[in-house]
């Protein structure tokens, strides 16, 4: 009994050799589709079994590659293809990386998965626009599980979900929704610069129903922004007013006299920029001028 347990442990530790028997009138591409789910895998079966022809007699037993290894290298190849396609056409080592990618494709076709993985690795190293720079990135997970990945510096980061790998370069951001593949990354939005009113500006208005205003807030446009979120707050505490606008100004509804701070952030397709630096303004009542004309009777 103990011997049986040892054998079980050995079987678990050693990947089983996978084989398939060719059926009557079955082509190598059909065998590849049946066993690997990919008719293009015929070349791998041919290389792995040292076949000289695509015509294999029925009843022939063929060795099959490990599905796990093949799938990993296939997805790494796909990610490298995307990275080459998205790389700057003028990047110094793009051509060299493309050549490495072609070499890796050939190794994959020959079922040399380990060699292909190493070649893909060197293609990545060549392609990385931030090669030599430290890699810095942030990962933010919301309560829903949706994740935002922002790459600050260094070579591309690979974001993988639902069998799709998306390279994300420095200065880019991607938001992955649970159960969906990663979308194309966007440029990271910079924070808008507040313009008017000037910081700590005292603003005078004649009160209307006890309120002062309106104040016009303006800020700089941010390339790639779809809109702007503005918040007006008291010196301490929660926002009193907020709005999302497409323009770079907001005619703020009237407020009671007092000191206020405000911030603005750019809103993109899938993410928001950091909030701008806070700006302050102060609303005070303007002195009411009473003009008395000369009486006629004088």
């Amino acid at each position, binding site marked *: 009994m103990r011997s049986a347990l040892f054998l*079980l442990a050995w079987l678990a530790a050693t990947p089983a050799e996978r084989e398939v028997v060719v059926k009557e009138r079955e082509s190598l591409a059909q065998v590849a589709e049946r066993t690997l789910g990919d008719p293009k895998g015929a070349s791998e079966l041919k290389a792995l079994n040292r076949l000289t022809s695509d015509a294999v007699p029925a009843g022939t037993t063929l060795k099959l590659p490990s599905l796990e290894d093949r799938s990993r290298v296939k997805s790494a190849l796909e990610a490298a293809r995307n990275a080459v396609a998205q790389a700057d056409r003028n990047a110094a080592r793009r051509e060299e990386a493309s050549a490495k990618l072609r070499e890796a494709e050939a190794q994959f076709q020959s079922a040399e998965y380990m060699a292909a993985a190493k070649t893909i690795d060197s293609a990545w190293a060549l392609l990385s626009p931030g090669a030599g720079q430290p890699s810095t990135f942030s990962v933010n997970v919301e309560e829903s599980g949706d994740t935002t990945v922002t790459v600050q510096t260094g070579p591309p980061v690979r974001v993988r979900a639902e069998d799709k790998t998306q390279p994300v370069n420095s200065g880019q951001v991607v938001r992955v929704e649970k159960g969906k593949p990663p979308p194309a990354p966007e440029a990271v939005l910079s924070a808008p610069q507040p313009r008017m009113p000037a910081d700590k500006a005292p603003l005078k208005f004649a009160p209307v129903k006890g309120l002062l205003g309106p104040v016009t807030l303006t800020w700089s446009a941010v390339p790639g922004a779809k809109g702007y979120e503005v918040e007006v707050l008291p010196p301490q505490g929660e926002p009193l007013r907020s709005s999302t606008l497409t323009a770079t100004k907001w005619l703020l509804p009237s407020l009671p006299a007092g000191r206020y701070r405000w911030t603005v952030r750019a809103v993109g397709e899938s993410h928001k920029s950091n909030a701008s630096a806070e700006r302050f303004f102060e609303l005070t009542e303007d002195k009411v001028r009473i003009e008395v004309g000369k009486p006629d009777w004088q």
Partner: protein
Amino acid sequence: MLLALALPVLPIGCTADEKPPAPPPPPAARMPEPRAHLKEVRGDVKLKRATGDEWLAAREGLPLFENDKVRTAAGASARVTFANGSTVNLGEDALIGIAETRPRPGRERTDLTVLKGRVDAALDAPTTQSLSVTTPSTTVQAGREIVFR
């Protein structure tokens, strides 16, 4: 079927009723290698060991092993330094797992699982280092491409 497979490995001249020679003793149990260490612990940071159910107060310099979990409360932060030199800063209200050995089906094993909150990662030498971070919706791989571990 399993029994049929097992039979050939029984020693020759040894019937099923006879006891086979005792197998060699298993190697002495070794302490697992820490996967990372906790640094720069600020505020309320808790650690749950893979072997325990209790959340304990985290301290600077504590080693982190596979399947340990770390969480930060509001206003708290901590840094996790991995054995290969890559670092991850945990923001407030974050929950992470270290190198989970039982990932969800279809997911590859990773260095770090982020279940909640924000982490900022840094690799000083991405050509030689790698870091993989799994979340409920994605896996992020940075640095050197590693297909086979």
